[in-house]
């Protein structure tokens, strides 16, 4: 086989291979959708993060605007410190409310940001002051049982 034909075939092979990689990156993976080019960091403290994971989505009005980049435990206040990478295109007011929510009944947990009315915006490295922790099912049930019990038999 002469060298030109060989080169042609090998070029064809490499081109298909790269096309397959691009397909995996863009169509199968999320390289096109949610890898933000520029991000800035915000922090938030929660009493309980439930099942939140690193790389979990941060959504506002249902749109993914960032990802969870780090979860730490603060030994002084006994709270969880969550660092968020927010897309640089989006700014949020100072009194934004961060809560840990669950998508669907048993889906993954994410952080929801509800914008407030403040005119000042959160800057890089700011702490989101108002947060709501994850709802832990066991606590909810025990609270419900406790209320039922305290209502007692006199309710009949």
């Amino acid at each position: 086989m002469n060298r030109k034909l060989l080169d042609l075939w090998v070029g064809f092979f490499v081109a298909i291979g790269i096309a397959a990689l691009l397909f995996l990156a863009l169509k199968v993976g999320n390289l096109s959708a949610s890898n933000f080019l520029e991000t800035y960091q915000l922090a938030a403290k929660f009493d309980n993060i439930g099942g939140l994971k690193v790389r979990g989505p941060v959504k506002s009005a249902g749109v993914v605007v960032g990802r969870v980049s780090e979860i730490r435990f603060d030994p002084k206040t006994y709270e969880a410190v969550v660092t968020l990478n927010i897309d640089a295109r989006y700014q949020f007011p100072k009194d934004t409310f961060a809560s840990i929510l669950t998508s669907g009944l048993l889906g993954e947990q994410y952080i929801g940001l509800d914008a407030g009315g403040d005119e000042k915006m959160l800057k890089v490295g700011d702490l989101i002051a108002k947060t709501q922790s994850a709802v832990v099912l066991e606590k909810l049930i025990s609270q419900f049982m406790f209320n039922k019990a305290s209502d007692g038999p006199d309710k009949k």
Partner: protein
Amino acid sequence: MAKRIVSVVAGLGRRVNDSLQRLGFAARFFVMLLVYSGQSFRRIHLTIRELFFSGVLSLLIILVSGLFVGLVLGLQGYETLQRYGSSEALGVLVALSLTRELGPVIAGLLFASRAGSSVTAEIGLMKATEQLTAMDMMAVNPMARIVAPRFWGGVISMPLLAAMFSAMGVFGGYLIGVVFIGVDEGAFWSQMQASVDFHHDVLNGVIKSFVFGIAVSLIAVFEGYDSIPTAEGVSRAITRTVVNSALAILALDFVLTSFMFRGI
């Protein structure tokens, strides 16, 4: 009785000794291979020729088996997922299992039996017919002229083949899930894109296939180079290539998986 024990222990010792010696030679061989790679890159068409033999000629088997693996994953995945009413997650199942594990591993196994075995046979026969010795006599280094191009051809083509396998498998899953069974197309792709991460899943799969490519190519050229130069010796070397490559791929896969996907 004592004589027998002595002979058993001596045999065991010889075996350990032999395999350690072989391991040492393999390590030395690998270093030599890397040292002479520079020389072989100066005549790049040798490597391109090997890319043709190990890459292009493996295209058909890789693409067809990728398609069938994807089809089977689609069918079986749908069968189980629809019991829990979450058949839209079919795309996630197919894409994650292919990019993380099945793509690199099955492509590696196919590559070892399709391309690795033929490299071993070629080098082994060259050794049996004393072509390697003849090259040495003509001051042509067989490491640079024969071994290094075959090694690099395998290392380069393996990640590309694994990517093609995964892409073809995802297409197979799409074919069964969306075209034949009728899973919602938008949900199929969007759920897949939401849970397949480029760095965590796709890139780690590529790294895996690259490592498998190095392992398989090294085993193939080494077994050929180290084979006993007889018909029987070459056939045994080819068997060893396929068996050792399969074991190496599966063991390395476990090690790499435990590094890459721990905890998260």
